[in-house]
């Protein structure tokens, strides 16, 4: 049943950077399903901008591995979604193509950085979308927009073709309205790709099961402490109670390394980003660099003009964190902190099968509310630990506060993505029924 899908959405939330009005599709598990792809995932013949002026007209000559898998599964790729520039943000406001609005309340941000994918799904423009998650960029917008978002185990989905922001932290993952769809999309994209040397050959092929009797759920006190809106904490505790009602048990666990998590995360991601984004020099791609200037001058002028402020800030932070005389204090310490956090989770996940907490400490911010970079960074505190530990984490809608969605975050052991999907599915089935 191959064919072409007409796609002319009413994009009132600015979810898309590029739409494909005539999207071809073929036979397969997702035959004819409209799938939106975050604009930092390479699509052959469709421009891939990372929401940056520096890649405004860049058309990749190749497909990301996951995009090839989508096409093979019959999906119709209907567009490229808006995001924070290069994934650097928690609100989708740093996009060079203007902010995306939250369909649940258009005066609010959709979260970020995969805000366009979340809004496209939440507004019913597509049933499923791909996002990427470096420090919460799938789960945060999923929570803020009231949809499901899964950050897979690091090494489970190929990063080949994902424009790198922070290689050691990020994964591509599904964003959908239901857990079942997230699992279906995950089954398509989580296949071994030898081109990604950091992958393990652990394909995901799973139908969610709602039977969670006996599941041990770890509750880390750090996820309900200072900085977490008490109404969010209460909503999430109620959701955990639903899981208990389904036969799960709760145990208290502790992640003491959490106090270092955010600093470690920002040192690592900006360090890697400072290196990853250095290639955008206007020579091989991007807007032409002025070849009449001397090269340093030409690069600096181009990068000042074409990179947004947040990107330049993070590139500079990372450059500083790696520079001679400071690398020991920042980059090296952050690696130690990361190892400690990994060990904290390993320990906690011996006492528990999964760990539960809020996805975000608050509900969606108002547009323009977070002007200070540090206060924006602080809102990532509950999502970055899963990236540092490389473990799977899902956000599933678990209620609303003043009409604004709240996400329940479930984290599991490495390569036990199936288990967090099952727990999320059990919850979803129970509250829908």
């Amino acid at each position, binding site marked *: 049943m191959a064919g072409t899908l007409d796609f002319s959405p009413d994009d009132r939330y600015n979810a898309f950077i590029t739409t494909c009005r005539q999207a071809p599709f073929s036979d397969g598990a997702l035959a004819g399903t409209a799938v939106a792809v975050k604009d930092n995932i390479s699509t052959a013949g469709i421009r891939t901008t990372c929401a940056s002026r520096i890649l405004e007209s860049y*058309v990749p*000559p190749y497909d990301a591995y996951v995009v090839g898998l989508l096409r093979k599964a019959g999906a119709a790729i209907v567009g490229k979604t808006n995001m924070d520039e290069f994934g650097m943000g928690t609100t989708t406001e740093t996009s060079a193509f203007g902010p995306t609005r939250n369909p649940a309340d258009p005066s609010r941000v959709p979260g970020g950085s995969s805000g366009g994918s979340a809004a496209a799904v939440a507004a019913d423009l597509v049933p499923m979308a791909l996002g990427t998650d470096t420090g919460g960029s799938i789960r945060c917008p999923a929570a803020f927009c009231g949809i499901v978002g899964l950050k897979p185990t690091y090494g489970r989905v190929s990063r080949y073709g994902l424009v790198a922001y922070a290689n050691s932290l990020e994964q591509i993952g599904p964003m959908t309205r239901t857990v079942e769809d997230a699992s279906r999309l995950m089954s398509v994209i989580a296949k071994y790709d*030898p081109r990604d*040397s950091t992958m*393990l050959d652990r394909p995901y092929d799973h139908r969610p099961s709602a039977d969670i009797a006996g599941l041990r759920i770890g509750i880390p006190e750090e996820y309900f402490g200072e900085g977490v809106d008490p109404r969010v904490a209460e909503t999430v505790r109620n959701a955990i109670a639903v899981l208990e009602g389904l036969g799960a048990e709760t145990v208290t666990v502790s992640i003491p390394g959490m*106090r*270092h998590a955010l*600093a*470690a995360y*920002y*040192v690592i991601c900006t360090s890697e980003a*400072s290196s990853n984004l*250095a290639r955008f*020099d*206007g*020579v*091989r*791609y*991007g*807007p*032409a*660099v*002025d*070849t*009449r*200037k*001397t*090269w340093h*001058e*030409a690069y*600096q*002028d*181009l*990068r*000042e*003009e074409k*990179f947004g*402020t947040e990107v*330049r*800030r993070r*590139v*500079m*932070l990372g*450059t*500083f964190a790696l*520079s001679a005389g400071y690398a020991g*204090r*920042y980059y090296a*310490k952050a*690696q*130690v*902190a*990361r*190892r*400690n956090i*990994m060990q904290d989770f390993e320990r906690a996940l011996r006492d528990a099968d999964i760990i539960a907490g809020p996805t975000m400490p608050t509900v969606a911010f108002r547009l323009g509310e977070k002007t*200070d*970079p*540090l206060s924006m*960074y602080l809102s990532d505190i509950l999502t970055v630990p899963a990236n540092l530990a490389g473990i799977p984490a899902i956000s599933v809608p678990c209620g609303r506060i003043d009409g604004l969605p709240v996400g329940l975050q479930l984290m599991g052991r490495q390569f036990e993505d199936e288990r967090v999907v099952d727990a999320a599915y059990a919850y979803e089935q129970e509250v829908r029924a």
Partner: protein
Amino acid sequence: MITESDIEHIAELADIGILKDEVPEFTTQFNAILDYFEVLDTVTGEGAPAAGITNVFREDEPRSCLTQEAAIANAGSTENGFIKAPRVM
């Protein structure tokens, strides 16, 4: 404490331009963020995360390359199959 001239030096090292009137705000924000990073001074223990998987290779077998046309298609300016870049010296 990071000074405005440090910020200019870091921008130079990163080959990223910043405008004169951006420097004071960048400096303030940098210092706030670095203050927060001071928590890393309390990290104890040693060593980076364990290696996990090692020895990932491909065989020495050729694959097809892009055509010259595709290789330089995204370049802003080209000449006889070469890509133009600012002069180094």
